[in-house]
């Protein structure tokens, strides 16, 4: 390996791409959003309450006026505190007329057998999902509990029944240490690292996306054969991986610095405080998975990028890697409930999902050591294998012009290209 040539490629890739309009726009988006938020905050200062109410109204279906047809007798008359949100109708026909006239956004038809069955028909003009969402609305839930228990139990008990628990998570590790005590502790121990992981995984794909673009453009412009007559493909690939990795880190630094600047340093303090709360093990392993993940994806992106004849074709081919890496995201909901579930453990041993899966799992729970060691070993073994395949694909792909090689052709050329 000629390290001087690797450095020349690294510097070239960094300097060329850092001036790209696409990179500048992407990097400027976060500070620009910060400016928008600041302006928004200044303009609406003192109206936060109204603003909050506006957003709650947009997302909480129960916050709009609801019609009620009570055939059970438990909800008539409507308690005074609910009269501004709920309107009682004599029958379904009247309620539906009000619904059509948009006086109410949905109608709850509470049957005679409600107490035995709990059955309530929700009529709405929106989608089936909006009707289903009514049952999850805190307002609607409180309406039911308050009416069922009114004048039957004391007000404190009634209030508690409507909002039975305010969970404060406390996790005990296998070593008996308590983690995430208190709401802030929970935020710093689980939420901040989790979103930090998502953030880092995003930068992995930003950087490897630039790499794919760089290779595809060199191939599309036919300059690549001139370049590989001067450097070995492995040197070219190494220079691109390092240069564009540095580009991704630059973007990350700009985002963090701008966020810190706009918040008067609060974000920087939060990051420092967050980092202090994040267990060292999680932080150190996060960095390891970040580096291993980036190198693996970047090498594969470079190899596959060379196979396409145009940028678009290369992106289509690389889609398989993006899909694999996105699978752990799709499982995020389940991961929050059980970060050590079987499917999560299995995907931690598959090279294309391991970096993302482990970075998402680590902040959420104590991941078994066998998973940590196993996934790192898998990645360490996969990187040389990816380098071997990636370099071959790169070498083969860059010389095939005009049409994308078929799988059979790739296999033949790979066998023939020693």
């Amino acid at each position: 390996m000629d390290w001087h040539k690797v450095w020349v490629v690294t510097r070239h890739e960094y300097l060329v791409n850092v001036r790209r309009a696409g990179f500048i726009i992407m990097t400027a988006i976060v500070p620009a959003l910060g400016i928008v938020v600041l302006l928004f905050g200044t303009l609406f200062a003192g109206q936060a309450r109204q603003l909050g109410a506006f957003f709650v109204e947009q997302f909480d279906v129960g916050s709009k006026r609801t019609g009620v047809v009570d055939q059970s007798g438990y909800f008539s008359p409507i308690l005074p505190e609910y009269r501004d949100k709920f309107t009682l109708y004599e029958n379904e026909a009247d309620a539906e007329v009000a619904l059509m006239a948009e006086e109410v956004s949905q109608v709850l038809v509470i049957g005679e057998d409600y107490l035995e069955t709990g059955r309530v028909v929700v009529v709405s003009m929106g989608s089936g999902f909006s009707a289903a969402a009514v049952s999850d609305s805190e307002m609607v839930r409180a309406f039911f509990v308050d009416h069922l228990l009114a004048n039957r139990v004391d007000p404190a008990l009634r209030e508690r029944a409507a909002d039975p628990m305010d969970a404060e998570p406390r996790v005990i590790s296998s070593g008996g240490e308590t983690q995430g005590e208190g709401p802030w502790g929970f935020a710093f121990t689980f939420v901040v690292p989790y979103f930090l992981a998502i953030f880092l995984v995003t930068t992995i794909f930003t950087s490897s996306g630039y790499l794919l673009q760089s290779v595809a453009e060199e191939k599309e412009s036919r300059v690549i054969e001139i370049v590989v007559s001067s450097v070995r493909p492995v040197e070219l690939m190494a220079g691109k991986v390092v240069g564009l990795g540095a580009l991704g880190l630059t973007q990350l630094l700009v985002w963090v610095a701008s966020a810190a600047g706009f918040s008067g340093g609060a974000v920087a303090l939060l990051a420092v405080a967050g980092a202090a709360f994040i267990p060292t093990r999680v932080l150190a392993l996060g960095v390891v998975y970040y580096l291993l993940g980036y190198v693996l994806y970047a090498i594969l992106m470079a190899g596959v990028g060379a196979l396409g004849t145009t940028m678009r074709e290369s992106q289509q081919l690389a889609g398989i890697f993006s899909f694999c890496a996105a699978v752990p995201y799709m499982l995020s909901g389940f991961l929050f409930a059980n970060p050590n579930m079987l499917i999560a453990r299995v995907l931690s041993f598959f090279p294309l999902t391991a970096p993302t899966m482990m970075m998402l799992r680590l902040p959420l729970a104590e991941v078994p050591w066998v998973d940590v060691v196993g996934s790192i070993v898998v990645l360490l073994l996969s990187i040389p294998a990816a380098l071997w395949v990636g370099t071959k694909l790169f070498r083969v792909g860059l010389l095939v012009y005009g049409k994308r090689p078929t799988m059979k052709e790739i296999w033949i050329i790979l066998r023939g290209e020693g």
Partner: protein
Amino acid sequence: MIIQVQDLVKRYGDVVAVDHLSFEVERGGIFGLLGPNGAGKTTIIRVIMDILNPDAGSVTVLGQLPGQAKARVGYLPEERGLYRNLKVLNTLVYLAELKGISRSAARERAMGLLERIQLEEWANRKVRDLSQGMQQRLQLVASMIHDPEVLFLDEPFQGLDPVNVERTKCIITEQHQEGKTIVLSSHQMNLVEALCDRILLINRGRAVLYGSLAEIKRQYAPNTVRVCAPHIPADLPGVVQVEPDDGAFNLALAEGARPQEVLRALLDRDVEIQAFEVAPVPLEDIFVAVVSGEEG
């Protein structure tokens, strides 16, 4: 010898692209690598440039393995282009740095070359702003930015208009005069004929003609003389056919007849001879004859 290729074999699956090929290129010459489409010319160049690995055989360039001689060799591939969004000067400097030239030396040499091809005013413009002809000249000088000892030019005249063909010929001739060894692959036989001193004609990955161009042309010359004269007597000894050709006559000679005997007979009969020469055979005719003969 600058380049030595011994028993080279290169396969793509079941297809043999280069089949036990051997040849040598002498220092300071212009060597023509010829062949029909798909003959294996580009594969041979890519192996010599260390872009492809051979399946068998050996290649040395300047006495070194191909991968070790990259800094001393320049290459203009058939499929070529440049970074469209990069400035002209920066493009040349980057390509020179990849060949191991320092940044400052690369800038100096790049400006010198740009002056030679009359593009110095375009140094700080983007490549995409250049016309097609300018880009082709830039590609050519990019291959010699590091002052290589050997230059591989794969189809350097492809897609050029007559003016740029002449400019490219001039640049190649200048490089040759500076002592560079040039390996030229081209389909334009007239240009190969004008520039090359030795050639290798390959077909289906095998050598079918190899050696000095003059020797090959002598070997394939038809037994014909071309005479520029007002008329040709009908019963010249040793002449079997007379064909008028653009103000002159082509005289096909009988087997065993020598041109000197025909010339003497013409002088004996007081024919007013303005020019007399053994009819040359265009390289293109040799190419077509050999390749057609190979393909049966």
